[in-house]
């Protein structure tokens, strides 16, 4: 796994990555506050998409309930901060640990009793839904009235307590998505990564080749849950308000999986590319309709639906696999080049 980290991509790919990194690092100096908020969203979706992709894209386990981990991550860190003054970074560790346990419980129930495919997806939805209803009734965390983080005008960015300007949040999210990308890249080239792909492709054949299917699927679920919860921590401190009805909602689970699906399931670049394409298009659409004075609720969801259909019809493997060949770099499948 360590070795895979230093397994450099082709020079051309490296150049593109370097250019992208420079653009992203310098972006806050150039773009306005609105564009910056869109970029924060892009990075957020790239991050949680990457986390979801570990489970679905790599190990082939469809979760439609990832809002559960976002929600629990957000609530754990926010409650620790609001009630006990615990730093969000320490809160993040707690959130990851708790979500890892939740992921392990769901994974254990599903894999121990051979629940797979759509039934597994239904199980993930069920857990997210009853968490939503549960949190609606826990008065300690504000119940359905919501939980609010203190917002005060500050003269400087307090990274330790994640209180500060959008620019700070932008860099935090950039660092998180970059870390997730590196982690996934290392995993993809490791024994675990190969085993996940084998399980995704054919469980029975994978098992006959000596793969402990239960163990490796558990690893994927636990890792994905822990990673996703960090997205929730960020969400809590960025938006400063949490409502169970919103954060655990199924459309939150759906919107985070659209990026990797449209970008390219199981690829490393897919979640990033999909998040960028979808978020930027959706935001442009919103500003266009706003400029025209139209008020069309639900238009964004309709738009997501159209995007999904177009990609499924014309690029069934997602945008990235189609684009990669034309760009002349092939870092997802190093062995295939």
């Amino acid at each position: 796994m360590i070795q895979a980290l230093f397994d450099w991509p082709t020079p051309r790919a490296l150049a593109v990555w370097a250019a992208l990194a420079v653009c992203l690092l310098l972006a806050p100096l150039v773009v306005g506050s609105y564009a910056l908020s869109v970029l924060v969203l892009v990075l957020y979706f790239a991050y949680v998409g990457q986390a979801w992709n570990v489970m679905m894209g790599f190990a082939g386990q469809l979760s439609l309930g990832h809002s559960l981990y976002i929600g629990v991550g957000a609530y754990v860190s926010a409650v620790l901060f609001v009630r006990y003054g615990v730093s969000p970074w320490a809160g993040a560790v707690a959130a990851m640990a708790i979500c890892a346990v939740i992921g392990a419980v769901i994974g254990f129930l599903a894999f121990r009793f051979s629940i797979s495919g759509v039934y597994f997806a239904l199980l993930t939805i069920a857990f997210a839904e009853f968490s939503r209803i549960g949190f609606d009734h826990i008065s300690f965390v504000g119940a359905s009235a919501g939980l609010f983080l203190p917002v005060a005008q500050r003269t400087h960015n307090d990274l330790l307590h994640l209180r500060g300007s959008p620019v700070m949040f932008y860099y935090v999210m950039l660092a998180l998505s970059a870390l997730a990308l590196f982690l996934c890249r290392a995993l993809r080239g490791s024994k675990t990564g190969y085993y996940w792909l084998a399980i995704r492709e054919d469980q029975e054949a994978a098992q006959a080749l000596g793969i402990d299917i239960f163990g490796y699927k558990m690893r994927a679920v636990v890792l994905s849950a822990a990673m996703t919860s960090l997205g929730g921590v960020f969400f809590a401190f960025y938006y400063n308000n949490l409502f169970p009805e919103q954060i655990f909602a199924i459309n939150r689970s759906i919107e985070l999986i659209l990026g990797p699906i449209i970008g390219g399931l199981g690829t490393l670049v897919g979640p990033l590319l999909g998040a960028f394409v979808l978020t930027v298009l959706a935001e442009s659409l919103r500003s266009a309709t706003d400029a025209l004075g139209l008020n069309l609720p639900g238009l964004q969801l309709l738009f997501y639906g159209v995007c999904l259909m177009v990609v499924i019809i014309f690029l069934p493997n997602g945008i990235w696999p189609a684009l990669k060949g034309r760009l002349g770099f092939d870092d997802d499948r190093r062995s295939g080049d």
Partner: protein
Amino acid sequence: MALLEVRNISKTFRGLRAVAEVSFDVPEGGIVALIGPNGAGKTTCFNMIAGSFRPDGGTVTLAGRRIDGLRQDQICHAGIGRTFQIVRPFAQLTVEENVIVGALNATGSVSVARGEARRALDMVGLGPKAGQMAASLTLPERKRLEIARAMATHPRILLLDEVMAGLRPLETDQMVQVFRTLNRETDLTILLIEHVMRAVMALAGHVIVLNHGETICAGPPEQVVRDPAVLECYLGEEAL
């Protein structure tokens, strides 16, 4: 003591006795063939040895260790590699990646596994196709991929389920050559299910004939093909 000892294994599917009290040995370094008409219980025997099905009764012992009832992956670790009669390639992975997955059974290092995969692919003649998607392979190539993948797990005994089916005579001879070389050079023990008698006669030192889930004959290939019961139920009189 034989490397693989199968004792009185049985399997019933909803009242149908697929395998009834079958026993046989596979000696270390030997090549044993399991033959018989369709539905005789050959693949069911394989599935019980490799752990896809748990036998209703009887025992399977590999090098003195009971393996019946273990999971497939544990049995693979114990040293049994298998191919599937209906091939199961990892379609969206490259040919090489397919075999790397197999090779990782014996090592934690992907680069070592890649080397092993290359060797296994060269052995079955798929070296030039290493970078292609497994989905793009033809059926005979997929069969060879199954073999390379199973071999890459470093088994002590390789179970081959009809890997010659659909191959042309020349390809069959090449495949026979591959297994002979493997058997001679690495002392790999092989248990095969095969309908292609050309391959059975060329490879096997011992043949077991199953019919309706029971052993009806066992012995050296020359003797088995002359057995009246085998001729009647499987090979037909014209085989003489």
